[in-house]
């Protein structure tokens, strides 16, 4: 293990799931309003995972009231309280950007069975 990886390992958050494109996740984001802190949940499908180690980010897409909304999170950001994996989908692409051009039924993903990917990284 290189020195960079060792430095990153010390700062990485434990318990972050292995995310793959097509995974439906619910991300709990810490929001600080004044002196109060609450959690905002963002649920959608992972359409992109990029980077490695400390610098990995993932993009979650959801359709909210007919409008597509995407948020990119750094995987190890302290502002993320929790990443809950809801289900996995069968996908054949590393990046699911094609979902952007689709609506309704065409934008669905087929759920995958068997491959229970709940391991932690």
């Amino acid at each position, binding site marked *: 293990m*290189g*020195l*960079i990886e*060792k*430095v*990153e390992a*010390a*700062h990485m958050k434990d318990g972050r799931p292995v995310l793959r494109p097509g995974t439906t996740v619910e991300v709990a984001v*810490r929001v600080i309003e004044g002196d109060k802190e609450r959690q905002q949940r963002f649920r959608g499908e992972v359409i992109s995972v990029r980077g490695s*180690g*400390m*610098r990995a980010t993932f993009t979650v897409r959801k359709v909210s009231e007919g409008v597509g909304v995407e948020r990119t999170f*750094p995987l*190890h*950001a*302290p*502002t993320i309280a929790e990443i809950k994996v809801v289900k996995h989908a069968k996908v054949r692409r590393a990046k699911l950007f094609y979902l952007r051009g689709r609506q309704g039924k065409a934008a669905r993903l087929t759920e995958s069975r068997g491959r229970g990917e709940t391991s932690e990284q």
Partner: protein
Amino acid sequence: MIGLIGRKVGMTQIYGDGGQALPVTVIEAGPCTVTEVRTPERNGYAAVQLGFGTNKETRFTKPVLGQFKTRNLPPARHLREFRVADVAGLEVGQSLTVSLFEKGKSVDVQGTTKGRGFAGVVKRHGFAAGHASHGPTAGKQPGSIGASAYPSRVTKGKRLPGRMGGAQLTVKNLKLVGVDAEQNVLLVLGAVPGPVNGLVLVETRKD
């Protein structure tokens, strides 16, 4: 001020107390051996010479190797001097580690910048580039470099294309965001001159 010789390992990012991402450079610094102490009485100035790294004995010339032999030290690959205010408490053979540094304090980092070869004025001096097309003076040309018959020469210091990089550069006042004594690692906020694996000098500063 006293410092350490180190190696630039690379960059990554960590998160600060407020949750913001901080770009950091990882530097493997020390342990350095004090190979020589310069005193005002004998040398006219106060400094320490530090050694860093190892190498095969055959890689050294006999005169250099002899310097280590007389001091009973293992030969060090890199030798650099650091000016100090006072040499008290520093003696030959002593080992210095990252414990010289403190998280939250600032340091100066000196390195040799990456060589850019023969570079044009846009890269080297930050000239504005011209239009990409439409005519013979498009692109990254320097433009006019002066008047004609008078003065009949190019003024001294005119910024022109030439060798860029590969020069010594000190970046001052970089904040230390981490000190790892176990792995001899310093985490410095921001970028540091030189390529990965390049030699850097990290110096403490009064703040």
